[in-house]
């Protein structure tokens, strides 16, 4: 590999600027990130599959467009990592599960098609909890991803791979998906930015569904502006997704730039009583309070709002999500694609026996737990008491949001109750694991947008904490405006990005260098 001349620590917007000014090339930028992957991903394990060849080919095409004066978009040539739950034509898509080992989709998810159309070279597919079920990426069938801040700690989940890739400069941008916090919580614990757009704001076509009524694709980045720029690329109506909203995506990057100017005069910021007290780590709360003070300094008015139904959000979520998941995951039956396991000691097994053996071998424990939960919740005689009640709670949560947005333009809370915990610490305690998403789940249940931005390091452990900004449906621009204002204020205070405080990754600490194109066993 040629000498790495490109600075991979800058933002996607800065890379795009350098590309536009001809100071670097997409091939150079892409190669630099591939180099970082080679050096660091043995330790971090953010990627399940790296497509060096494909990314470099796309980069070369981007450079040609730039040379011809016809870039495909503002981000043309800026490389990106894609969570492995999104279908990528010709690239393995496993969802972190053994049951999809070897599956290469014949089609692109709409968001992936939009990345390609906008000219973003795809570096590879990122690790995740199996079928996005988890808050630590420990439930990946291909081994956990590690937090670049401390390799003994989790990077959050389910999108720990995307967050860790961005936090360790193995990609300037990534796509994540958020069903109960899978973009925002990893953002919080890795010191990165993660945005869950309004439900229906970004196409889900090609997103392998965990819970269709909650899932949403969104940007993962190191800055608020970068997230907004990426959101503009992937957002907007898609006729292939009936639940996608038929409205233009809006001027999100403009909102971020405006926010960064630092004036929040007249903006009412609501602190949600139910999401800022008990169960939160002291250092997380301290950083939250500091951030609030900075918002006030920027001219915002802080009000306290109560959302009483939020206390039922976690319970409702753990009925709706597994119910939908149990049905979605029924298609993995060894008949058409993916893993096929023949039952041992059975001669001429029937289709049903093959299905059973495959699902037993192909799904991990957490997936099985949720299939069982969901199947139970939908069963005749229990439906009304469980799924039906949960839907009612959703309605109430929606009403709480509506009422709160009467008195506040945005709502805020800590993103996650704690900083990154140690690998294995909560693996045997599902409830403790589920509690990570306490503050992020209400937004999914109501379909409103939410962003997490780094709020600093907790005093007790020196690890990143996150600040969440929620806005009404279709008012994603408010997340970007308030988020960018806070980001600017915090970076002034810190004297630079939070990630500058992260310990450098020493390639020698890794469990070995990554050999590109040979991840995931089955890849190409």
């Amino acid at each position, binding site marked *: 590999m040629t000498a790495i001349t490109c600075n991979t620590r800058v933002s996607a917007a800065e890379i795009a600027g350098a590309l536009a000014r001809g100071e670097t090339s997409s091939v150079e930028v892409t190669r630099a990130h591939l180099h970082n992957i080679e050096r660091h991903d043995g330790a971090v394990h953010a990627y399940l599959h790296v497509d060096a060849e494909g990314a470099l080919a796309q980069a070369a095409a981007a450079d040609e467009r730039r040379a011809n004066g016809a870039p495909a978009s503002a981000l043309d040539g800026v490389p990106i990592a894609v969570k492995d739950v999104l279908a990528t034509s010709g690239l393995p898509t496993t969802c972190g599960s053994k049951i999809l080992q070897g599956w290469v*989709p014949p089609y692109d998810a709409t968001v992936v098609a939009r990345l390609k159309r906008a000219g973003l070279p795809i570096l590879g597919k990122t690790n995740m909890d199996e079928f996005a079920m988890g808050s630590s990426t420990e439930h990946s069938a291909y081994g956990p991803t590690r937090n670049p801040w401390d390799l003994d700690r989790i990077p959050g989940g389910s999108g720990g791979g995307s967050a860790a890739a961005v936090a360790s400069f193995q990609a300037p941008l990534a796509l994540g998906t958020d069903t109960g916090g899978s973009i925002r919580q990893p953002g919080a614990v890795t010191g990165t930015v993660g945005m869950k757009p309004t439900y229906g704001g970004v196409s889900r076509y090609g997103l392998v569904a965990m819970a269709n009524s909650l899932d949403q694709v969104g940007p993962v980045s190191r800055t608020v502006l970068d997230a907004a720029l990426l959101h503009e690329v992937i957002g907007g109506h898609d006729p292939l997704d009936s639940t996608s909203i038929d409205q233009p995506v809006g001027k999100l990057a403009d909102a971020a730039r405006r926010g960064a100017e630092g004036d929040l005069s007249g903006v009412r910021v609501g602190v949600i009583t139910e999401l800022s007290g008990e169960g939160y780590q002291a250092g997380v709360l301290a950083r939250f309070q500091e951030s609030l003070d900075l918002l006030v300094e920027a001219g915002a008015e802080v009000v306290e709002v109560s959302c009483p139904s939020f206390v039922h959000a976690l319970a409702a979520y753990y009925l709706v999500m597994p119910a939908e998941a149990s*049905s979605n995951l029924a298609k993995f039956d060894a008949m058409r*694609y993916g893993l096929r396991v023949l039952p041992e000691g059975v001669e001429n097994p029937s289709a049903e026996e093959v299905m059973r053996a495959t699902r037993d071998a192909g799904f991990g424990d957490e997936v099985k737990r949720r299939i069982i939960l969901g199947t139970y919740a*939908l069963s005749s005689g229990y*439906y009304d008491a469980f*799924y039906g009640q949960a839907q009612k709670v959703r309605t109430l949560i929606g009403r709480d949001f509506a009422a709160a947005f009467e008195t506040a333009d945005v709502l805020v809370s800590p993103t996650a109750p704690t900083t990154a915990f140690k690998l294995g610490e909560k693996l045997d305690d599902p409830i403790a694991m589920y509690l990570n998403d306490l503050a992020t789940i209400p937004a999914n249940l109501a379909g409103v947008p939410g962003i997490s931005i780094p709020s600093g390091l907790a005093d007790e452990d020196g690890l990143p904490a996150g600040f969440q900004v929620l806005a009404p449906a279709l008012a994603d621009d408010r997340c970007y405006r308030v988020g960018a204002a806070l980001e600017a204020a915090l970076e002034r205070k810190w004297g630079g990005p939070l990630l500058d405080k992260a310990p450098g990754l020493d390639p020698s600490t890794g469990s070995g260098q990554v050999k590109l194109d040979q991840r995931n066993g089955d890849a190409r």
Partner: protein
Amino acid sequence: MTATSATGDALLSYDDVLAAYDPALGLEVHVELNTASKMFCGCPTEFGAEPNTQVCPTCLGLPGAMPVVNGKAVESAIRIGLALNCEIAEWCRFARKNYFYPDMPKNFQTSQYDEPICFEGWMDVEVDGETFRVEIERAHMEEDTGKSLHVGTSGRIHGADYSLVDYNRAGIPLIEIVTKPIRGAGERAPEVAKAYVAQLRDLIVALGVSDARMDQGSIRADVNLSLAPKVSAGSTAEAPLGTRTETKNVNSLRSVERAVRYEMQRHAAILAGGGSILQETRHWHEDTGVTTSGREKSDAEDYRYFPEPDLVPVAPSREWVEELRGTLPENPTQKRARLQAEWGFTDLEMRDTVGAGALSMVEETIAAGASPQAARKWWLAELARRANDAGVELAELGVTPAQVAGVQALVDAGSINDKLARQVFDGLLAGEGTPEEVVEKRGLAIVSDEGALSAAVDNAIAANPDVAQKIRDGKVAAAGALIGAVMKEMRGQADAGRVRELILEKLA
């Protein structure tokens, strides 16, 4: 009196069934719509394509793919509902029906559950001039499954060497039309069931929303039947419904009737013997005329329905519904009255035409140029007999209204006579082409060569001097014998009227 079926089921005689029990029917009819694309994706729907060539990520259930509702299918569903006098929901959703089966790509079927698009309707069904009102509970939209082909001697899943699945059918739009329990049909229950399906099929044809071919599975009937003890005369109380069986995929009108009758006799034999009916799905066997047990279907079977989260609700505007109401064909009762008047049929002729399931064929034959009486004659006399001999429905015989009109046109032109026309039908059924081509190939045209005809008449007179003398003496009625002789010599290919004229001329 009890008999035994081919598969060993005890069957009570039909009279004994009726003496002790009242049947209750329930019909579930699946109609495959003829939309150009599938219910939730853009794949084509043509019948008979190479297996697995009309598929995409959505109808194959690939991970990540999503459905989008076919607006044309919704339109067809609403038109069917309106024609069945149903209410049309202002707001309804799709739901997932969850169960595992290899030919179902997602292992759930996207269907409708407690929010069907059409509900609370009715259709009046005529049997032997008597009208039965069949109440429609609902008509809902859903997608078809793939088609399994079990390869091996058994032809069924059990004992198959291997199975193949064709997903071309997966995702084809279906409308499932479900009746409320039909009670009070008594001995006519089998005929009512058949007449309902026949009339529903005619309605679907008139709406133009389906190919409506039972033989190709574009209309499939599931027949539910239960028996309740007969309520004593004079009592107004209705006995509670008995345990039902559901006989699946009854794929011809005749089979609907036979399956109902069979299940009535089978149920009655079990009940009369003190047994109880097992609630189950049964399979109809066209060849042997029996039903056999399928999978057990109890209330415990749990499809875990819930609203399909990938689709938004369907909310047809009232304006649209009214617009669609304006596109409905005439209702069947009015239509019959109008046609009877137009055609000049007697009540009996009309009833026979309807009863034979020939109404639409007669109508189309007349539209193609035949006279009403000629159309009726061919369908009810000639073709109905042939259909009966072949054990198929008239519509499935293989002769089209256009062909029948073509045959009659040849008769009207004097090219053939009725007797030759029957031979033309033989040729049509053998696939020998158009009526004209059959006449040509089989050499059936009437000989119009006066010389040959005259010679044949002379031969007949010479061979039958006694008869000839009678005619000369004025007994014109005797001419029939000579006509017969001439026709025989001409192998039927002569115009009997012209022969008669020639005989009378020569013997004047």
